C-alpha cells in the first residue's frame, strides 16, 4: 500500500509539472504587468495545437516543433499585449479580466476553425516510449523526463530573473514601476517582453503535453482554473509558491485518485479552502 501510494505520488508529481509551467507564467505576468490573464490557459492550449501541427502534420523534429510552437504562441502573445492589453493597464480590474475572457472566446473558436472540433491524439517520439522500473513498478520514461524538465525550468526562470540584465529590469519594474521608469528602463518594452515570456512558459507546457494528453478545444479553460487554485495556494506573484502549490495540488490529487476517486476533483478545492483559512495570502505570499 505504501509503495503504491509513493508510486502514485510520483505520477502526480509529473502532472504537477504541467501545472507549474502554466501557473508560473500566470503569476509572472501578474507580478510584472499587474494583469490576471484569464486566457493564459488558452495560450497553453494553442501551444499544444501548434506543436501538434509542427510535429505531427509537418513532420518536424520533436524539439524543433516545441521551439516553433513557443515562437508561434509568442507572436500571438505579442499581438495581444501590444495592441489590446497594453491600453487597459490603467483601467479597472473588470475591464482587463473581461478583455482576457474575450481572448478565450476568440482563441477557442479560432482553434476549432483551424484544427476542427475533434480531439487530436499525437504520437510520442520513439525514444520516449517505454518505462523504467521505479519501486518495482514500470514508470513511463516521458513522465520522468517531465519531472526533470519542470525543475530545470524553475532553475532557468530563477536564473533569468535574478541574474540577467533583462531579468533585473523585470524585477525592478514589478516592484516599483515609476521608479524603474525614472531610472531609464523602458517599461512598456519590459511589460511586453515579460508577457511574451509568460506566454512562452505556457506554450512550452502545452507543447510538452502533446505526447501524453490529447488536444481538444476548451482545454485551456479547465487548466486555468487549476492554475488559479495553485496560485491561490502558493501566493499570487510568487514563483516559488507556484512550484510548491503545483506540487501539492498534483500529488494530493494523485493520492485521492487512488484512495477516493470521487473526491479527486474536490481535493484541490479543499486544499485551497484550508489555505484560505490558515494563511489567506498563500503559503509564500507576503503579509496580507
Amino acid at each position, binding site marked *: 500500500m505504501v509503495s503504491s501510494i509513493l508510486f502514485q505520488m510520483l505520477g502526480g508529481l509529473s502532472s504537477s509539472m504541467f501545472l507549474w509551467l502554466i501557473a508560473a507564467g500566470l503569476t509572472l505576468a501578474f507580478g510584472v504587468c499587474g494583469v490576471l490573464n484569464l486566457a493564459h490557459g488558452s495560450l497553453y492550449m494553442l501551444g499544444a495545437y501548434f506543436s501538434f501541427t509542427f510535429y505531427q502534420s509537418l513532420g518536424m523534429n520533436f524539439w524543433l516543433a516545441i521551439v516553433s510552437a513557443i515562437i508561434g504562441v509568442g507572436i500571438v502573445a505579442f499581438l495581444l499585449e501590444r495592441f489590446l492589453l497594453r491600453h487597459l493597464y490603467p483601467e479597472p480590474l473588470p*475591464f482587463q479580466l473581461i*478583455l482576457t475572457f474575450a481572448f478565450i472566446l*476568440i482563441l477557442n473558436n479560432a482553434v476549432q476553425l483551424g484544427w476542427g472540433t475533434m480531439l487530436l491524439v499525437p504520437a510520442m517520439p520513439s525514444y520516449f516510449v517505454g518505462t523504467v522500473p521505479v519501486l518495482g513498478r514500470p514508470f513511463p520514461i516521458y513522465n520522468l523526463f517531465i519531472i526533470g524538465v519542470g525543475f530545470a525550468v524553475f532553475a532557468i526562470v530563477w536564473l533569468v530573473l535574478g541574474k540577467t540584465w533583462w531579468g533585473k529590469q523585470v524585477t525592478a519594474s514589478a516592484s516599483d514601476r515609476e521608479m524603474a521608469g525614472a531610472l531609464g528602463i523602458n517599461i512598456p518594452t519590459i511589460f511586453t517582453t515579460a508577457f511574451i515570456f509568460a506566454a512562452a512558459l505556457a506554450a512550452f507546457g502545452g507543447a510538452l503535453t502533446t505526447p501524453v494528453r490529447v488536444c481538444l478545444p476548451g482545454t485551456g479553460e479547465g487548466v486555468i*482554473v487549476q492554475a488559479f487554485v495553485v496560485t*491561490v495556494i502558493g501566493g499570487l506573484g510568487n514563483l516559488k509558491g507556484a512550484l510548491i502549490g503545483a506540487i501539492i495540488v498534483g500529488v494530493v490529487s494523485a493520492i485521492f485518485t487512488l484512495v477516493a476517486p470521487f473526491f479527486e*476533483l*474536490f481535493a484541490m*478545492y479543499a486544499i485551497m479552502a484550508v489555505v*484560505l483559512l490558515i494563511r489567506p495570502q498563500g503559503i509564500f505570499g507576503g503579509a496580507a
Partner: protein
Amino acid sequence: MSKLKNSLDFTLKRKRVPFALLIAFIIFLFILPQFGGDYALYLVMRILMFCLLALSVNLLLGYTGLLSFGQAAFYAIGAYACALILMGMESPSLFAGLFGALAIVAVASLILGFFCLRHTDIYFAMITLCFGMMIYALAEKWISVTGGDDGLMGIPRAPLAIPHLFSLNMAPLGNYYYFVLILSLIAIFVFYRIIHSPLGLSFQGIRDSESRVSFTGISVKNTRLLCYVIAGLYAGLAGALFAPMEQTLTPGVSHWGTSTEPIIAVLIGGMSFAGPLVGSVIFFLVKDIILRYTIYWMLPLGIIVVILVMTLRGGVMGTLERGLLPWMRSRFSGRED
C-alpha cells in the same frame, strides 16, 4: 462622509427616469402574450433571468466593489435545488421549489462567502471562479443526484399551489411567463429599495472607503457577507425560475461562462441601477442574433466584447448620461446641468 453624501445626491438625481416610458414598457411586457409567439415569451423570460444575474453581479461589483466570477454557482444551485424539489414531491408546487431553492442558496452562499471573502481584491475574483468551478465539477460528477452530463430531464412546470387553498396551472408557457415577469419585477423593485436603503448606502460606503465605514460602527466583514448572500439569492432566483421553464437541466449552466456573461452585460450597461438591465438586453439580443447565424458564436462575440471593452469604458448608460443627456438638456432647455 462626503463620498457617501455624493453617492446619495447621485442616486437622487437618478430618480429622474422617464417614468412614462418605463410604465409603457412594463405594460407592453404584460400584454405581450396576447400577440407574441412562444419564442418571444421564451426570449423575454431568458432576458429577465439574465437581468437578475446581472443585478446579482452588479450588487457585488457596482455597489460593494467586489468582482465575482462565480455567480453561476448560485444560479446552478438554485436551478438544481428547484428541479430536485419539484421532481421529488408527490404533488409539486412552485412555491415549495422556489422557496426551498432560495433557502439552499442562502446556506450555500453563506458557506462559500465565508471562504471567498477572506480576500476582497483580485484574489476574490480568482477564488469565486475556482469555487464556482467546484460546483460545476459537483454537477458533473455527482451523478446519482444531478444526473451527471446527461443532466435532469422532465422537471415539472408545477402548479403554483398551496394545498387545500388554491392552485394555478403553470404548465402553459403563457402562464409561466406571468409568474416569471411578476417575480422579476418584484425582485428588481426590491433591488432598487435595497440599494437606496441604509444597507445599500453602507455597501457603497464600503466600496468607496472601507475604513470610514468601519468607523461609523458598521461591521465591514458582515456587511460584505450579507451583500454576497443577497447577490447569491438573486442568482439563485434566476436559476430557480430557469429550471421549470426549460424542464431540463445540464451542468453547463454552472460553467464559468454563465458567470462571465452577466459581468460583460454590467460593463456594457455601466455600474448603475439601470445599467445592468440595459446591458443585459443588449448582450442577450446580440448573442441571440449571433447564435442564429453561426455555431462559431464565440469568435464574433469575443471580437464584439474586445471592441466594446476598448471603446466604451463607461458603459452605455454612462456614455448616455455624460455625453448625450447633458447635450440634450442644454440644447432643449437652455440651461447647463
